[in-house]
């Protein structure tokens, strides 16, 4: 309050209206609210109003910055709003385009026409009085050729792309690319082996989505491996599916595996059979099969939704070894607790690439690994720098 009074006093001396100042002073002491109404003194105008074409954009926008009025927060502290005015000629007429709350120091006018010169004034209001800043320089908006705020994104995208393309081309050229063995694949042998000992069937469920889902494709390459083992051990395999397209492809996969392992005679089309497209109908159908056949090993590899629970529970209750693999996040927890082994998300794809040696899949896994390695390095370095109080490095990863 004293700040306000001091400034008012100063203004009055300038105008030579000392009696009025005294009057206001007394009124102010008597009743603060009254004094507000009689506030005839305008707030100090905003300073250093600068207008410039908003950088890194598609045009149609001019940014304004200014320094706060000395009565905003400090001084009389009675600023209520900033008003942005715009004209196409320096002398006006200026039209109000928006009103901003006190404390504002920046505005982006997104209603400009590219190529047209504009002049801006920022005026400040204390609710009663208004004072205007002098007009800004002429400024016009235009579109830019590059968004420099996104330079870090360009670099990141470029490095990642280069890595992926490089590894895919290496894989295609027949270069040996190392992928570690996925632990869950050892369990495949064990499970099929046990089914052989017990003289019971092996079930393979390739999920409920169609062939356009990558998980189904990954699941089928694991089916190839399982079929190879059952062919070698002479164990019976059964693959109930819920998509006719998946059935066709799964038959090819199994047939090829039986051929490769030298037991083509053991193959027949009945191994892979279609039940129904319907989600719960399929679950009920597989359920019935499990209870009847009591398989010793059950594989769930592919995309699963809520039916995962019904299947895994029944499989568990018939005492089968269960090995699951899916990238469906909400089903993974259930598989982990109801199955003996679970390939989690990317492990499914890595296992499939490991088995199929398909260049695209293999190259992609390696490319992504490169990405992960870079990220791990950045995280390690960045955290150390942050802990030492050096924040510049992490700013590099701020994206717009």
């Amino acid at each position: 309050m004293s700040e306000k009074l001091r400034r008012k006093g100063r203004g009055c001396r300038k105008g030579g209206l000392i009696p009025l100042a005294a009057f206001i002073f007394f009124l102010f002491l008597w009743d603060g609210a009254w004094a507000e109404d009689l506030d005839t003194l305008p707030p100090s105008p905003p300073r250093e109003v600068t207008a410039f074409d908003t950088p890194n954009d598609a045009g149609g926008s001019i940014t304004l910055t200014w320094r706060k009025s000395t009565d905003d927060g400090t001084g009389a502290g009675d600023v209520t709003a900033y008003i942005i005015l715009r004209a196409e000629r320096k002398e006006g007429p200026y039209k109000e385009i928006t009103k901003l709350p006190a404390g504002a120091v920046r505005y982006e006018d997104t209603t400009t026409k590219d190529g047209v010169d504009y002049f801006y004034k920022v005026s400040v209001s204390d609710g009663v009085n208004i004072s205007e800043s002098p007009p800004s320089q002429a400024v016009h908006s235009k579109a830019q050729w590059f968004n420099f705020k996104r330079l870090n994104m360009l670099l990141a995208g470029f490095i990642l792309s280069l890595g992926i393309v490089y590894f895919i081309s290496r894989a295609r050229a027949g270069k040996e690319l190392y992928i570690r063995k996925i632990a869950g694949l050892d369990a495949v042998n064990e499970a099929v082996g046990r089914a052989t000992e017990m003289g019971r069937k092996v079930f393979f469920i390739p999920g409920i989505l169609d062939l356009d889902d990558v998980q189904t494709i990954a699941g089928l390459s694991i089916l190839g491996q399982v079929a190879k083992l059952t062919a070698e051990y002479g164990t019976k395999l059964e693959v109930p599916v819920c998509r006719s397209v998946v059935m066709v492809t799964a038959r090819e996969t199994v047939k090829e595996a039986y051929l490769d392992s030298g037991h083509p005679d053991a193959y027949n089309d009945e191994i892979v059979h279609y039940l129904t497209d319907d989600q719960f109908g399929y679950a009920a159908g597989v359920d019935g099969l499990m209870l009847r056949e009591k398989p010793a090993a059950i594989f769930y590899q592919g995309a699963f939704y809520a039916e995962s629970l019904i299947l895994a529970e029944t499989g568990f209750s018939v005492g089968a070894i269960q090995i699951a693999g899916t990238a469906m996040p909400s089903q993974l927890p259930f598989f982990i607790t109801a199955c003996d082994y679970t390939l989690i998300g990317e492990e499914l794809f890595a296992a499939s690439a490991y088995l199929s040696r398909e260049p695209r899949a293999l190259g992609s896994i390696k490319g992504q690994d490169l990405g992960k390695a870079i990220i791990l390095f950045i995280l390690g370095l960045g955290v150390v720098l942050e802990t030492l109080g050096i924040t510049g490095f992490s700013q590099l990863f701020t994206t717009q």
Partner: protein
Amino acid sequence: MGFFRGMLNLDRRIIFILIAGAVVVPLFIPFHLKMHPTPASQGLYNAVEKLPEGSTVIISGEYDPGTAPEIQPMMIGALKHCFRKGIKVILMGLWPQGPALEGQALQEVFKEKEFKEMNLQYGKDYVNLGYKAGGAVVIQSMGTSIPATFPTDMAGTPIEKLPLMKGIRNFNDITFVLDFSAGDPGTPAWVMFAHDRFHVPMAAGCTAVSAPMLYPYLQTKQLSGLLGGLKGAADYEWLTKSSGTGIRYMPSQSIAHLVIVIFIIIGNIAFFVVRKGEKR
């Protein structure tokens, strides 16, 4: 041991009856439970609470009747909260069921005396723009132009005839986004496009299934807050001091959780006892 073995082979249908009981009985004996809102729920409440009167908020609905018990109370809570604060609401959805359920939520809100008396007008205080196909691309397209993306509202009224939509060109004219989603396309799409690309602050409500996956967005402030599942809905009702099915269903939810926990514990005890017996 025979007892445990028998238990492991218990008919599913008996368990079905038990869980149905755990859900239904508490509905009949409603007891009032005190809520402890999660920091994530509090974040959403605070963000909406801070919005100035007269600001324009987009509320998008990506859910269907299947997930309505979780999401609908959030939607109703958000509408009430915005209306009380004098915020203008633009409803829309990236699932075709969303706008219909938003309409139902509006009806529920206006059943209450407080909101009936506000005399809010369609077209001026709130609009329902309906559904557009394309998921994330719709949001990206709204970043260029909302009128071009939504030439009409849900019922086919041209957007120029709605006073609320006057002066709304793209996300520059939107103060805040609230997204209520049950899956894909949903909250991640809104975060990626509305927040990260067009810089509109936002918060979300989602089914409990997807809530844990969205927590990284909370830490980075890509989301100001998050309501997760029925618990999130109940938190929001508690914070806005309104009543609704979130709090109403909490006793059933509590008892059912307890029953499931007990099931898991008994099942595991039986499993280990039987396995130990077999090893011998």
